[in-house]
């Protein structure tokens, strides 16, 4: 097949495309107004297996020749109360023993590797652990932090609307 025969952008006309286009159109304005909320976006990933879940926020990733404590980027899981256990259990069920990719952002002062954690299992497909936690209402989005296309905000809004997890509790 030649390039000339190739289909145009697969997003054309779809709802996803329209939403993405609206998002894109808003970027220019958002960029100036939301400097403090600069979302994260980069590759440089490490692939391995999650061998321990220390908390809902921190897991241990074994990449074969070494291990890292990985802090899941952008989430703020409950530090106490019943929800703490539920959050950790959620991460354990989703990630422990699974092959996973850490999409690295930076190392924090505690020496933890901060990044997105994507599990990859044939039966589950790819799951973004942080995003799933927020979507389930088992963690809040870190203040001033979001993914590139504001996916964390959208997930948090969805959980809040559905009154899941932390959003089910009265203030």
């Amino acid at each position, binding site marked *: *097949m*030649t*390039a*000339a025969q*190739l*289909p*145009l*952008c*697969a*997003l*054309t*006309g779809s709802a996803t*495309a329209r*939403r*993405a*286009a609206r998002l*894109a*159109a808003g*970027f220019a304005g*958002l*960029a*100036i107004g939301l*400097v*403090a*909320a*600069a979302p*994260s*976006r*980069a*590759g*440089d*990933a*490490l*692939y*391995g297996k999650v061998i321990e879940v220390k908390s809902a926020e921190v897991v241990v990733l074994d*990449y*074969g*020749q*070494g291990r*890292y404590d990985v802090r899941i980027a952008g989430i703020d899981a409950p530090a106490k109360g019943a929800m703490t256990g539920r959050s950790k259990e959620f991460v354990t069920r989703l990630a422990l023993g699974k*092959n*996973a*990719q850490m*999409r*690295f*952002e*930076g*190392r*924090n002062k505690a020496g933890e*590797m*901060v990044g997105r954690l*994507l599990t*990859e299992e044939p039966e589950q*497909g*790819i799951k973004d652990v942080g995003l799933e936690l927020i979507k389930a209402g088992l963690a809040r989005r*870190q203040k*001033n*932090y979001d993914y*590139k*296309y504001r996916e964390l905000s959208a997930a948090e809004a969805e959980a809040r609307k559905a009154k899941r997890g932390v959003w089910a509790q009265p203030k």
Partner: protein
Amino acid sequence: MRTLTCNIASLRPAVAAVVLFAGAASHAQVSGLTDMNMSKMANYQNECAIAKNPTNKLQLFSLCNNATGGLFAARSTDGGGTWVYPDPSKTIANGTAGLGPLACCDPTLAWDTFGNLFIGYLGNANTVELILSTDGGQTFTNLLTIGPATVDQPTVAAGFGAVWVVWNQSGQMRARGAAVTGLGTVGAFGAMQTIPGTTSCSFGDVAIAPSGAVVQVCENPTGGQGPANLLVNTDADGLGPGNFGAAVTATSTNVGGFDFITPQNTRSVDAEAGLAFDINPTSPHFGRLYLVYTEEPVDESNDTDIMLRFSDDTGATWSNPPIRVNDDATNRAQFLPRIATNPLSGNIAVCWHDARNSAGNNTMQVFCTIATPTGASPTFMANAQIGDGVSTGAGSSPPAAGQLDIQFGDYAGLAYFQGLAHPAWADNSNSTGDNPNTTTRYDAYTDRVTGGPAANEGDPHITTVDGIHYDFQSAGEFVVLRDADGLQIQTRQSPVATAGVLANAYTGLSTCVSLNTAVAAKVGAHRVTFQPNSSGVPDPSGLQLRVDGNLTTLSAAGLNLGAGGRVAPSASAGIQIDFPDETTLIVTPGWWASQRRWYLNVDVFHTPALEGVMGARARGSWLPALPDGTSLGPKPGAAHQRYLDLYEKFAGAWRVTDKTSLFDYAPGTTTSTFNFPADWPRENPPCDVPQQPPVKPIPLEAAQKICGRIASKFRKADCVFDVAVTGHAGFAKTYLVSQRVQTGSTTVTVSDDKDPTRVEQAVTFTALVARNLPLPRREAIKRGAPTGTVQFVLDGEKVKKPVPLDRKGMARWRTSELKPGKHEVGAIYQPAKGSEFLSSISSAQSHVVREGK
């Protein structure tokens, strides 16, 4: 007979002064122009890729991570002088139809010789995306989506009838390739190959050999702070049925996959291995594969270096020991290297982030260097600071969170073609003054990196492309500059009988002297000579210009020699030759009436050429490299040995032969006719030449007075030397003209914002006038951009009135009235009255208008 000896003796302090400043540090041969901010966008852009169209040296495309959506994208149609955007958002892959699937990051680019621009990146939905532009980055077509999967770090390479993409998926390197048979004609991609032995291997590169073989490199393991290995796999049959072969360890390195160094302390760096083939068929190392990477000789020392190895068997075995590319003597970091080879010459460019000037080892400037492929192994020129400003690792930091985030990112970009290297990087110095976030966020910066300037003036006094200043007084014809891309400049030197001599500060020799009397050049497929009458009797009315042996008279617009080559009248009453590889040669003649001979000052600007009498020194050599790339070694202590080095070994090596000569000769003469006297320059006086009465010297004080208006210290010293030795005051006048040429000569280029256009569709032509001499940014700002007007010319006819230049030296002409067909648009620059700049005429820019609206 009066000799000059007594004059020298009485003026030792003056001579000593000449020696002192002539021995001062030289400037680097590799030089950048003023940095350009491509993005000028809010928030940050980093991890830039950049590519140059091998079918059109004026077209560039750059793509970078963008913090807030899509990928920052910019294109240039004037060789990187100005940048425009394929979309008003300055982004592509932002979710808008026709601009590619939504992007996460990690852009990669490749431009093939059909004109196909391949653009790869990580999609936002865990995919690798490949899109194609066939119009220089104006519009895009989706080509391939890989995934969804846990993918990372795609890299695309194109050429030799193929396009390849490699990436990391689920911890292993993968590859897919497709045949390419023309512009926009891309075959089906083959099935995904899993590259053997690459578990926990990533952060690498891919390159296509002239044979079609494909080589990838990756770093193993991906985690940790080192040591690690760089593994290379070769797919020997390229698109054939065979897979990649077993992994070969090209080298170990102490830089791990996530190695935290002071200037990139939260993001870390990896070895950032990069590959590039020498694909110039006439290069002595055609098919050689270069590997650049980062090493940390003392593990965890934060003193990382840029290293290079090469393979002459497509990656099976590698040179050892590695070549250290950076030449600093500090214990600070060099990181994020990028390599590119010039396909036309085989020259190798490497650029990187460099903290050598950072006391805390925590800021960086972009540095570059270049090497020729001539020697057995490449010898890099002195490193040159290219980035004008100092950047920190805080340009992608969300301040509220107090994080440094991804800092400079994991790589920077570099394109190299036809004499200009174009690095692209994340910069928060705001040296351009137009970063909307000033110094708090990165913008995407670029520069144009080239060589020179170089000069061959007066007696002849040589300024090499790497800034060494020495006298070369042989008689005969010599290759003064050449490049494997086909450029060659030769000069003829004729002896001058003198009654005395002066010492040259650099060589310490007091030999007899000579003069440049003719110049010849290879310009693309043409041979150009500028020499006295071939009869041997100089005509005071002027020198003769010949193209391919035919006597030629130039019009004001000059003569187009094709492929970007041109010969035109210079503003210095001589000629200007523009070579296809961006080199500009300006020849300024002077008439010495009493001797009835012409002499020539030869000035070269922004040349990528590194070889010849005006070429660059091999590392550790006191003179430019010999034709085979070898070094003459350090300067000998004994004067006689220096004389033998320079005038026997070096001059003999670069002397023109009957086979290599570019000159035109009268019947019965050859190049050897001009090797006379055979012992020239004599090491010591007498400096007599048969049938040539010796010229009379004048006292140094008188010469200094005559040369008093010359500003450059080197040129003034040369002038004093020439006038004192020969007694000819006219040298001062010629030096003044050359000084004007050096500082004020300009190049005007014309670009269009779209091509082709339809009938009645508006198109804007921009003329950019730039000074030929690269100046440091501060100096450039102080002296300002060229002022005056530009007269646009359409198909040879002037268009309306001249347009005043703006403060950036640009003038624009917008029209929607072009008739269907192919047009030639040019520009004539006329400097403002009293300005230091000299006029120039552009080469024609073609523009096509298609039928129909």
